[in-house]
């Protein structure tokens, strides 16, 4: 595969490849993908610092250096991390690769199906709503239990027949097992 084609493949996949040289400097081995442009522009005239742009990598590089040094594995993959790029929050992942005696670092933008944010957002919103409903039901149960106790206390007193009948109806209604709708209130 030609170098140009490889560069195009990296661009198409929105990957950014770098090589860690023996003197510990890091050089790009592929053109910067479009998502990196706002980050490079934000750096302005100051020399681009990987750790400054992506503080997460400062930590990950320790793991990568250990892998490159020990040679125990050929790849270490980071967890996902977010980085601000202009107004966007990019979701990224880093991979450190040991390719023969060369040490390579690849930054990958997670998007489309690989970006779990929309899915997790919906799942967690649903979970919060479900938790809220459970709390409401619990509060309702407490209220009903109190009403049942009060109705029982009322029935223990002297009551005219009409009021007794009403108190008995209240007692029966609020004592329905949870989840049951009293027959008189069922639709149809």
């Amino acid at each position: 595969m030609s170098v140009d084609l490889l560069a195009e493949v990296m661009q198409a996949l929105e990957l950014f490849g770098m090589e860690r040289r023996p003197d510990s400097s890091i050089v790009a081995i592929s053109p910067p993908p479009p998502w990196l442009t706002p980050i490079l522009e934000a750096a302005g005239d100051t020399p681009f610092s990987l750790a400054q742009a992506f503080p997460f990598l400062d930590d990950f590089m320790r793991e990568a250096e250990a892998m490159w040094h020990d040679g125990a594995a050929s790849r270490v993959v980071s967890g996902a991390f977010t980085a601000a790029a202009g107004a966007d929050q990019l979701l990224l992942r880093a991979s450190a690769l040991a390719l023969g005696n060369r040490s390579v670092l690849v930054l990958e933008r997670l998007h489309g199906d690989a970006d779990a944010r929309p899915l997790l957002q919906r799942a967690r919103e649903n979970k919060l709503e479900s938790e809220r409903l459970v709390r409401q039901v619990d509060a309702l149960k407490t209220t009903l239990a109190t009403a049942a106790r009060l109705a029982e206390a009322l029935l223990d007193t002297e009551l005219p027949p009409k009021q007794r009948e009403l108190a008995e109806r209240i007692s029966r209604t609020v004592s329905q097992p949870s989840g049951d709708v009293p027959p008189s209130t069922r639709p149809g």
Partner: protein
Amino acid sequence: MIQKKICMLGGFAVGKTSLVSRFVSSIFSEKYLTTVGVKIDKKSLVVGGQEVTLLLWDVYGQDEFQTVQQSYLRGSSGYLLVVDGTRRATLDTAAKLHKSAGEVVGDVPFVIVLNKADLEAEWQVDERGLWKLADQGARIVRTSAKTGAGVEETFLELTRAMLDGRGQDRS
């Protein structure tokens, strides 16, 4: 300059991101936006005459969908265990995360943050469970990322403890 890594740990939607936003940018948004992976913010402050840069690792909330990766915790000098006062189960999650963090970073300072103090009337947290967790060497602080109450003090408290080299046994 001293640099310290702090991890924000807790269940989902307890307010970790909001606490960081309030502390770093004095911003609060009512909209819940879930965190995936980790987002790192920096804040410099002077504590006891020492300039410190805090690297705030806002780690996604743990739930049945995602378990916090231990690699995120490595190198942490301290952590905030965030609990949503209105959601009882978030205390159990915090207790589990405290155990995980201990396995990775050992005896480092941590603070239990009882967040959403502006909703105190709706609080459901089990006080006994809270004190049981605090007995392991942490202070409990009440915060509201919404109003800003207690937020700055919480980060300062943890920073002081980190600078003093206080761990669970020495706090």
